[in-house]
């Protein structure tokens, strides 16, 4: 037992070493409000902590208590108990025991106050580990609103650890929690592990139910609004219709809502490059800045609004409690195609980016299902493909209406559907290959509906924006400069440049797809990050002198590509071999080079055939 007590010999606060940071771990069931409390305590400033050697990424943040103690808070994956059947649960348990990262000095055990009756057993289980802990009755405001009354003193007396009531989103109770942390930290050494008897889960359940019967002094029925909403949203028919309508709304909104901010940014970028052209002499520096950096980075950055709109909806669905309902609705259908409802959440996050999606597959207990989920995650259209889709659709698909819907939005929707249908087929094939392993249970809580917290929404959006802009500022910036150099030298036109020489070598592979040299050149840097392809096209055509603005990029594409080529390019991008970061994560999560190369190969093959068929069919139909 290494409790690293700062004052093991003396209980005097002055004996604490100055400047030592204490580690606090947030432990609780999924949906117990860990993330909201984390944001509340740390002000939302988190860094993702990586622990080398083990596949772990945890959110870590810092704050200082009123008494001046420095605290590091770890946000652990949600668990229901100590059995650790899924990878995620094992990570949480190993972190609690200090086998990963820093040993926590104190556990904050979050219990969902409105559901105390069925959640209290978790506190008993964690207490049996004998680690210093504070029980946090979270969402006490929701419990009070519903008329649930809890006797805190009775809980504290019976559990023998401090119990604090908080409502994570509000400041209420957070001061009391921080005070309780300050009070608990100097006394860590005095916590006696409760290890005298072995308890079974059944014993904890009995203890918890007896205690909750005493401590809950008033308990009305369940949340009425949740019950009413579920009658519609989980309805066998209307629930499904609503679900499809929501998905459809998301894709329409990605277009419609982002139009205005995109236009503004585009105008600013055009003005900037026009201004620079006016000021700078007509030499290579001007070309590097305008054709290389601004054309490359600028044409990607303007897609930030779209990505934020998509994340806005994903975050709202997560925070409101709808995401679990979506998994519920999809479960039986997904089972029939060899997946299951639990894979729904990792797959839905893959629409944002395959990397968090692949990591989210850790919630799965069945290894076979986890592998299948990882393998098909890249078929969910990630947000980095949005710039590519928007650019090509914008240039080639007329902005007309089909009934009440925009045609461009419909094409976008069709591309997403193509990815999903392919995923279903691939999953079916994988199941044949991997065989029927242990099946992943569904068993999950459907949290009561909650109003999303503005702060969590903003923190979530800001962290996505940061990731996107950082990529634009580093990867895309670098690639743009390198590409600018490769397409500018030697010689004056694309064919005689370095990039042209490289492109001509691999061009034959792409010739049957109707891809021209410019596309082939743009595909290669697209491996660094998919949206780079857009920047690369921007740079390639800027050097070609075909375009000076991204408005001009549309015109350059329309002049240089036939419609079949554009459609084949879109089809290619539904599958397109993964960006390097995704491949690295697959290699790490599956611990296998063979699986990583296997994924690359099958996606490349699918992309090639899809583009080939699209090109040939379009040629035949359109002449």
């Amino acid at each position, binding site marked *: 037992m290494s409790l690293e007590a700062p004052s093991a010999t003396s209980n005097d606060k002055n004996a604490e070493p100055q400047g030592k940071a204490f580690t606090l771990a947030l432990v609780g069931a999924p949906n117990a409000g860990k993330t909201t409390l984390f944001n509340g305590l740390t002000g939302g400033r988190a860094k993702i902590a990586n622990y080398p050697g083990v596949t772990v990424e945890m959110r870590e943040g810092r704050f200082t208590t009123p008494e001046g103690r420095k605290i590091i808070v770890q946000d652990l994956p949600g668990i*229901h*108990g100590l*059995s650790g*059947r899924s990878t995620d649960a094992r990570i949480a348990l190993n972190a609690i025991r200090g086998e990963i990262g820093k040993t926590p000095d104190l556990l904050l055990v979050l219990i969902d106050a*409105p*559901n105390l*009756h*069925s*959640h209290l*057993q978790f506190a008993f289980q964690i207490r049996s580990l004998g680690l210093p802990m504070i029980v946090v009755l979270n969402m006490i405001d929701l419990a009070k609103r*519903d008329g*649930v009354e809890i006797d805190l003193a009775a809980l504290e007396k019976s559990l023998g650890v401090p119990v604090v009531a908080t409502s994570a989103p509000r400041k209420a109770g957070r001061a009391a929690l921080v005070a309780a942390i300050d009070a608990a930290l100097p006394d860590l050494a005095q916590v006696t592990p409760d290890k005298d008897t072995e308890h079974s*889960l*059944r014993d904890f*359940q*009995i203890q918890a*139910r007896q205690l909750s019967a005493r401590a809950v002094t008033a*308990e009305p*029925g*369940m*949340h009425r609004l*949740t*019950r009413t909403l*579920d*009658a519609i949203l*989980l*309805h*066998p*028919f209307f*629930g*499904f219709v609503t679900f499809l309508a929501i998905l459809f709304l998301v894709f329409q909104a990605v277009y419609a809502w982002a139009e205005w901010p995109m236009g503004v940014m585009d105008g600013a970028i055009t003005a900037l490059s026009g201004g620079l052209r006016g000021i700078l002499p007509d030499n290579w520096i001007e070309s590097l800045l305008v054709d290389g950096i601004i054309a490359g980075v600028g044409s990607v950055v303007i897609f930030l609004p779209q990505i934020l709109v998509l994340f806005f909806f994903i975050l709202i669905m997560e925070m409101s409690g709808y995401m*679990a309902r979506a*998994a*519920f*609705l999809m*479960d*039986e*259908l997904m*089972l*029939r195609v060899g997946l299951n*409802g639990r894979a729904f959440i990792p797959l839905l996050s893959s629409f944002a980016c395959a990397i968090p999606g692949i990591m989210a597959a850790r919630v799965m207990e069945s290894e076979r299902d986890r592998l299948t989920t990882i393998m098909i995650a890249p078929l969910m259209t990630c947000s980095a493909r949005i710039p590519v889709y928007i650019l090509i659709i914008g240039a080639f698909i007329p902005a007309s209406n089909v009934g009440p819907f925009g045609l461009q939005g419909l094409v976008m929707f069709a591309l997403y559907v193509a990815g999903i249908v392919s995923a279903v087929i691939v999953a079916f094939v994988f199941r044949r290959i991997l065989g029927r392993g242990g099946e992943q*249970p*569904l*068993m*999950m*809580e*459907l*949290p*009561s509906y909650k109003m999303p917290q503005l702060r969590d929404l903003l923190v979530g959006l800001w962290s996505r924006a940061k990731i996107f802009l950082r990529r634009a500022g580093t990867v895309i910036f670098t690639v743009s400069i390198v590409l600018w150099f490769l397409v500018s030298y030697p010689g004056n036109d694309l064919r005689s440049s370095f990039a042209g020489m490289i492109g001509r070598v691999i061009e034959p592979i792409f010739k049957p797809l109707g891809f021209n040299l410019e596309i082939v050149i743009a595909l290669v840097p697209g491996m660094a990050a998919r949206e780079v392809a857009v920047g690369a096209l921007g740079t390639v055509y800027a050097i070609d002198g075909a375009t000076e603005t991204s408005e001009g990029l549309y015109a350059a594409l329309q002049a240089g590509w036939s419609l079949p080529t554009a459609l084949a390019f879109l089809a290619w991008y539904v599958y397109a071999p993964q960006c390097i970061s995704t491949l690295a994560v697959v290699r790490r999560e599956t611990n296998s080079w063979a699986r990583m190369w296997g994924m690359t190969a099958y996606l490349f093959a699918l992309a090639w055939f899809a583009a080939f068929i699209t090109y040939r069919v379009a040629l035949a139909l359109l002449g």
Partner: protein
Amino acid sequence: MSRLHSLKRGQKARIRAFHGDSTTEEALREIGFAEGDEVELLERGLVNGSPLSIRLDRTILALRKSEAACIEIEAD
């Protein structure tokens, strides 16, 4: 001897015992089910009547039909 998956919408019952393998029982207990608890069937999926949403005290849990079949119930 009836099992949880045989309940109709809005029907209530009390949990009597767990059946099935020990992993499933452990998972069901961890998520909150215990002998003597009152359960109520709220909603059912479109295909095959699975999954089921079940009220356990004030909590709602989702179980597949096969998982619910591991819980033996008695009329309240």
